[in-house]
C-alpha cells in the first residue's frame, strides 16, 4: 500500500520537475532572444568605441577589435569638453530630479488620499498637461521665459521683465511646482502608488495623534520607496538625455552633454586633421559611451535599492 503511494508521489514529482525544466528552458530561450535585441546597441557602442582606424578598415573585424585603443576615449573627452559638460548636465539632472521627487510625491499624495469636490477636474488637468504636444508649446514657452514675469508683479516693481535664457531657471522653476518635463506622469505614478497602499497605515497614524502632514512624512513616505526609485530613475535619465529644452536655453551658457553629443561629429571634423570616417565613427561612439556610462552606473545603484525596498517596506495585507 505504502509502496504504491510512494511510487505515485515519485511520479508526480518527476512530472513536476520536467514541467519546470521545460518552462525554464523556454523562458531562458525567450529572454536570451529579447536580451540580445536590447543589448545589441550597447555592445555596438562599446566595441566600436575601442576600434582603431585599422580595425574599421579591416573587413574581418566585426565585433572585437584586433588593435583596441583607448585613444578614442581621450579624444572624445576633449571634443565634447567632457568635464565642463558633465557638470552642467549633472546640475540639471540631479537638481530637477530632486525637485521632481519632492514636488510630485506631495502633489500625487494630495490627489490620492484627500477628497474634495474639484479633485477629479484638477487631475484631468494634470493628465492634460502630459499630452500637450511639444509643437503646441515650444515657441510661446520660449517667449515666456525670455520675458519672464510673475503675473505682472515684476514689471510693476522692477520696471521690467527677466530674461531667463542662459540660466538654469527654465528647468528648476517649473520643477518646483511639478511642471517640469513629464512631471504630470510622475504625479500620476505617485498617485497610483499611494492609492494602492492600505489606508489602515494612515489611520494608525491619525489615531496616534499625528496630523496629516506628519502622517505623510512618517508613514507614507518610507513606504513609497519603489515609487521614489522609479520616478527618480526616469526623471534622471530623461533630463540627462534631453536635448531640445537644453539646447533652447543653455546654448550660449553652459552646454550639456546631450547637446555636445548631438554635435559631436561636427566637433571632431572641425578640430581634427583626420576627417576620415574610420577615425570619426569610433571617436563618436567613444563619446556616446562616455555619456551613457554615468547613466548605467546610476541605474545599477538604483536597481539595488529597488530590490531591497520590498523587504524594508513592511506592509502586510
Amino acid at each position: 500500500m505504502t509502496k504504491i503511494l510512494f511510487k505515485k508521489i515519485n511520479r508526480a514529482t518527476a512530472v513536476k520537475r520536467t514541467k519546470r525544466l521545460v518552462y525554464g528552458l523556454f523562458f531562458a530561450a525567450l529572454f536570451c532572444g529579447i536580451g540580445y535585441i536590447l543589448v545589441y546597441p550597447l555592445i555596438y557602442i562599446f566595441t566600436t568605441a575601442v576600434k582603431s582606424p585599422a580595425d574599421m578598415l579591416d573587413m574581418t573585424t566585426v565585433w572585437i577589435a584586433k588593435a583596441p585603443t583607448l585613444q578614442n576615449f581621450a579624444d572624445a573627452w576633449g571634443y565634447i569638453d567632457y568635464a565642463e559638460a558633465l557638470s552642467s548636465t549633472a546640475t540639471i539632472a540631479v537638481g530637477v530630479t530632486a525637485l521632481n521627487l519632492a514636488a510630485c510625491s506631495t502633489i500625487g499624495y494630495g490627489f490620492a488620499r484627500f477628497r474634495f469636490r474639484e479633485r477629479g477636474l484638477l487631475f484631468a488637468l494634470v493628465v492634460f498637461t502630459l499630452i500637450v504636444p511639444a509643437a503646441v508649446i515650444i515657441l510661446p514657452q520660449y517667449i515666456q521665459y525670455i520675458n519672464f514675469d510673475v503675473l505682472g508683479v515684476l514689471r510693476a516693481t522692477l520696471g521690467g521683465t527677466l530674461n531667463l535664457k542662459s540660466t538654469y531657471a527654465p528647468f528648476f522653476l517649473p520643477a518646483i511646482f511639478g511642471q517640469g518635463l513629464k512631471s504630470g506622469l510622475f504625479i500620476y505614478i505617485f498617485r497610483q502608488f499611494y492609492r494602492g497602499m492600505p489606508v489602515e497605515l494612515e489611520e494608525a497614524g491619525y489615531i496616534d495623534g499625528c496630523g496629516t502632514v506628519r502622517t505623510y512624512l512618517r508613514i507614507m513616505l518610507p513606504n513609497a520607496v519603489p515609487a521614489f526609485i522609479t520616478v527618480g530613475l526616469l526623471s534622471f535619465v530623461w533630463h540627462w538625455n534631453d536635448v531640445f529644452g537644453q539646447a533652447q536655453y543653455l546654448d550660449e551658457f553652459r552646454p550639456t552633454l546631450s547637446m555636445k553629443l548631438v554635435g559631436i561629429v561636427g566637433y571632431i571634423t572641425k578640430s581634427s586633421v583626420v576627417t576620415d570616417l574610420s577615425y570619426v565613427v569610433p571617436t563618436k561612439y567613444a563619446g556616446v559611451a562616455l555619456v551613457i556610462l554615468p547613466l548605467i552606473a546610476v541605474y545599477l545603484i538604483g536597481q539595488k535599492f529597488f530590490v531591497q525596498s520590498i523587504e524594508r517596506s513592511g506592509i502586510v495585507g
Partner: protein
Amino acid sequence: MQVVRKRRRSALERRKALTGRIFCYFWVVGFLLFVATPLVQSLTYAFGKVEISMGNVKVSPNGWNNFARAFTTDAEFLPLLFDSLTVILIDVLLVTFFSLFVAVMLNRRFRGRALLRTIFFLPVIITSGALIYVMQSDVSAQFAGQSAQAGMPMLQTVDFKQTLLTLTGNNPAVVVLTDAIDRVYQIIWKSGVQILLFIAGLQAISPALYESAEVEGSTGWESFWKITLPMISPIIVINLVYTIIDSFTDYNNTLLRYIQDVAFGTTLDYGYSAALAWIFFAVISVILALSVGILSRRVFYMND
C-alpha cells in the same frame, strides 16, 4: 452621542480636504505660472496668421481658416492622422501585454534576475533624447537591415508574411497581424518604462497575499488572476495612458514630424502648425478619456 461623533468626523474630513487642496493647488499655481499662458498663446496662434521676424512674433486674426484648411485642402494631414491612430491602437495593446508578461516573469526569483532587469531597462536609457539622434543613423539602420536579411531568425517574417497573405487573399485582419509581427522589435524597445512601472507595482504587492493563497491551495495561475491582476490594475491604467502618450509624442510619429515640419521646416507656418497640433491634441484627449473611462471602472483599489 451620535451627533457628536458625526460632527467630529466631518471636522476631520474638512481638515483633510483642506490639506488635500493645499497639496494639489500647489500644482495649480505652477500650472498658471508656467503652462497656462503659453497654452493660451498657442491657441491664439492656431486662430491666427503668425509672422516671426527678429525674435518678434506678430499675430493677426485668421478665424477658423487654419482648421478648415486641415480638413479640406491639406492632402497629407488626415491620412497621417488615421495612420498614426491605427498604429497606436495595436502598439498599445501589444506593449501592455508584453510588458506585463515580462514584468511578471522578472518578478519571480531566479538566478540572474538582477542582470535581466538591468537589460530590460536599457531601452529607457538608449532611446531617449540625444542618444537616439546620434545612433539612429547607424545602429538601428544596420540592425533593421540585418534582421531583414538572415541575422535574426526571430524577426525574419518577410517570407512567412508573403505566404500568409497569398493564402488568405490579402485579408485585412491578417495584414494587421503580420504588421504587428514586423513591429516585434519596436514593441520590445518601447516597453522599458512600462516594464519598470509594472515591476515597481508588483513589488508593492504584499507577499503575505500569495502565501495565504498558497496555503489555501491556489495554483500560480489562479494567484495571477485573483491577486496579481487586481492588485496591478492601477498600474495597467497608468501604463496604458503612458503608452498612448508615448506613441503620440514619439520621435518616429510621422504626423508629429509633419506638424514640426510645417512650423520649423520649409514653410515656417507657425499658425497652421499650431492648429494641426491642437486638432491632434483634441483627438488624443478623446481617445485617452474614452480608454481611461472604460478601464477605471474595472480597476481595483485596495481602499475604495
